[in-house]
């Protein structure tokens, strides 16, 4: 059956006008329609925060749970019912601060979840405190003289937890977002999608370099597996290797030619180069940065159950009782 955006839409979103969440929600509806899994077979699970309101605007099954626990709750949901397509939606506070532990362990286990991280580098719902992705020195209501701590870089955390999928898009970039959402769905295992989004009230302009189409043309690189890493308005720049590092160069300068430009390998097991790409400050890498197949937790749980069912002779409670040392009193 073919679905349209409307099949996944529900209610009237209550985010601030201009909030990145609006853009993302529209892309999610569209991506789900294109993916084609029925709303009844889909669960969208969030924690707490502005972005975690999202399930209320979905015509699927879902839960808007408690702060930080979305990944853990989604884990139980997916393992208990692996037929469901489970999307987990968190903000940077929900996913990486209070929920940091669940984030890394979901990645380590490689549960087949599509994990959305809406990163606006701020706490919006509590009205403007710094988050674990706010840069050092960030001034906010809870850091009037600037923060004295370094932020997480979500990709680094994902890779450090042995994550197998990491993609990034900008909330305002519908095609780019839809593309990575579909890739996340198609990837079996925990698929982390970092969505760069603006908070118009408390952190306006945080992703300015790439928030507009023009900005992205100048400051972003769209990575595609198997393709040369070229970027710029006329593809005049490229990513080349330098020693153990990579750098962005202008072709034709310093003797660099297109032949020197690296080809993106999202499928490479070793994440060294992918991490370097994810952490570039210019250009900012968008698209699927890492996409490596590995056994998923939920499948492994169920295949082990099938295996043990075949190996063991007891399959119901009455038979279980018989496996014990039993005596009879006459």
């Amino acid at each position, binding site marked *: 059956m073919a679905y349209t955006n409307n099949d996944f839409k529900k*209610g009237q979103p209550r985010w601030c006008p201009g909030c990145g969440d609006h853009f993302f929600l529209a892309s999610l509806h569209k991506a789900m329609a294109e993916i084609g899994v*029925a*709303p*009844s*077979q889909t*669960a*969208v*699970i969030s924690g*707490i925060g502005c972005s975690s309101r999202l*399930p*209320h605007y*979905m*015509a*699927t*099954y*879902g*839960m*808007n*749970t*408690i702060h930080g*626990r979305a990944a*853990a*709750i*989604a*884990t*139980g*949901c*997916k*393992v*208990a*019912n692996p*037929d*469901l397509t489970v999307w987990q939606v968190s903000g940077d506070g929900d996913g990486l601060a209070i929920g940091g*532990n*669940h984030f*890394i*362990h979901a990645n380590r286990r490689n549960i087949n979840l599509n994990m959305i991280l809406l990163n606006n580098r701020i706490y919006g719902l509590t009205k403007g405190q710094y988050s674990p992705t706010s840069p050092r020195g960030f001034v906010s209501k809870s850091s009037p003289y600037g923060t004295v701590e370094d932020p997480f870089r979500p990709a680094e955390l994902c890779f450090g937890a042995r994550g197998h999928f990491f993609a990034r898009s900008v909330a305002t970039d519908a095609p780019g977002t839809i593309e990575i959402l579909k890739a996340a769905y198609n990837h079996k295992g925990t698929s982390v999608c970092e969505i760069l989004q603006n908070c118009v009230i408390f952190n306006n302009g945080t992703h300015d370099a790439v928030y507009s189409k023009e900005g992205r043309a100048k400051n972003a690189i769209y990575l595609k597996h198997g393709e040369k890493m070229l970027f710029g308005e006329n593809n005049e720049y490229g990513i080349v290797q330098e020693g153990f590092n990579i750098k962005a160069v202008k072709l034709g300068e310093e003797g660099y030619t297109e032949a020197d430009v690296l080809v993106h390998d999202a499928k490479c097991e070793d994440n060294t180069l992918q991490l370097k790409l994810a952490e570039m400050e210019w250009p900012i890498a968008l698209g699927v940065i890492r996409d490596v197949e590995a056994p998923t937790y939920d499948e492994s*749980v169920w295949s*082990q*159950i099938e*295996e*043990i*069912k075949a*190996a*063991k*002779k*007891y*399959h*119901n*409670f*009455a038979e*279980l*009782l018989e496996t*014990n*040392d*039993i*005596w*009879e*009193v*006459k």
Partner: protein
Amino acid sequence: MEIKEKESVVVRFSGDSGDGMQLAGNIFSTVSATVGNSISTFPDYPADIRAPQGSLTGVSGFQVHIGAEQVYTPGDLCDVLVAMNAAALKTQYRYAKPDAAIIIDTDSFGPKDLEKAQFQTEDYLGEMGIDPDRVIACPLSSMVKDCLADSGMDAKSISKCRNMFALGLVCWLFDRDINIAFNFLKEKFAKKPEIAEANIKVIQAGYDYGHNTHSSVANVYRIETKNKVPGRYMDITGNKATAYGFIAAAEKAGLKLYLGSYPITPATDVLHELSKHKSLGVITVQCEDEIAGCASAVGASFAGALAVTSTSGPGICLKSEAMNLAVIMELPLVVLDVQRGGPATGLPTKSEQTDLLQALFGRNGESPMPVVAAASPTDCFEMAFAASKMALEHMTPVILMTDAFVANGSAAFKLPDLKSYPTIQPPYVPEELKGSWTPYMRNEEGVRYWAVPGREGFEHILGGLEKDDKTGAISTNPENHDLMTRKRQAKIDAIPVPDLEVLGDKEDAELLIVGFGGTYGHLHAAMDELRAKGKKVALAHFRYINPLPKNTSEVLLKYPKVVVAEQNMGQLAGWLRMKVDGFVPMKFNQVKGQPFVVNELVEAFTQIINK
């Protein structure tokens, strides 16, 4: 030699943690149960991970109470103490009756052993004031070595069989049929027949030693079985029975069983047990923390499983938030709290009943949750089944309380026939409501319908925010919040629970003993002793704590004196006073981390009666 007919006997096996005392105790209780004796056991583990060998902190004990008639507890003090080394004698002698027989391995009482056990002289018996005539002193280690000299086993493996020699000796002392022990070992080591063989040889040697030397001990005990209940039995610990109860309930409900858990003493054995049974489709996820254990169970419940999370008190602290999520989302969930000593890390391996108020009230907001408690190791099965049924049929999280004492203790378990258990019928949303259904629509019992994901036409969003009663949408409407709070409360209050049973002198007791959960055996035994002494005493023991049985007030207000005896500072007494107008009980409270001692109870209750 004299043969003593006894109603019941308590044996305590003690030794180093690695001495295999649990296994010896287990086999002995199985052998006794097989001939129809009533049994109750309790292991006493050291808290140290692995204390130095022979040290006082490394002693582990296993107490077995066997009786001709029903025994309710593992017994206060033992009639026979097995002490495998000096440290065991030093620490465990206080659990022996003044006339107890004491079996020691003299090979483990050398100068170094005595030093480690902090004896001052070589006359360790004198130091402890033990009459040598009561001691069966045998060079157990050397005899085991001789016995297995030709076996080709290495010294370490041989030394591991010492426990079986002690078992053989105890079997002789109690005139037990050691063939039952042989069969047990043959089955246990079916894949390692050489080990079974060695163990059997050593048991026989221990038995023969007792038989041939007649030793210095004065009696052999004989426990004749009375009032047999025919049937097929197995030995079961409380934790295993709890796991079995969940399995049985899931099968009865036709649901997958999901356990989200994190290892914590003394609840971990439930995780261990359920993890074994993949062939029954049981899903166990050992989570990253307690929070995720509960949170993932909430997710599994949403997805349509019988969801359980298991822990002890410190874990409940961490799970509270997710438990509360299940309260407001009105999803079924069973939270198992195997209580231990607190606060904080407290006494991890010891038993208390100090989490009751935490279970009842330890969450933000108005958060009513049913609380039930198991009274004995075998009752853990019944209550795990009952808690699961309650959760599934009333769409609520339920707290099942056990404690280290019943969880680790064991008793003979008559194999249940699931056919005789009630059905479990969750309130699945009827198909005809498609189109008009909203998430908080309730059935005639006030229970929200369950629409499990996958069903077309019932897509919905639940969550931790208050919802509108009618539409299910987020609502901050003051009247609606008041209404929803009352509906959630009314749903719990309406859950039917069995009446409170009164045992003993139901009509004319001068004292009613009241307790809950794992103290049942001790309170029952205390009542029996008082009644045997001519006192009029009754016992009302709570297994259903929220909601309380309907006849609670009637029972509590009927008797001239009431004492609430519990292993906390008066939590049940406080709860009952809150719920029963005019109830002013006396209290008996002990928080030692150890089970009640029946004699102490009898003494305290006698004082209350005589006051």
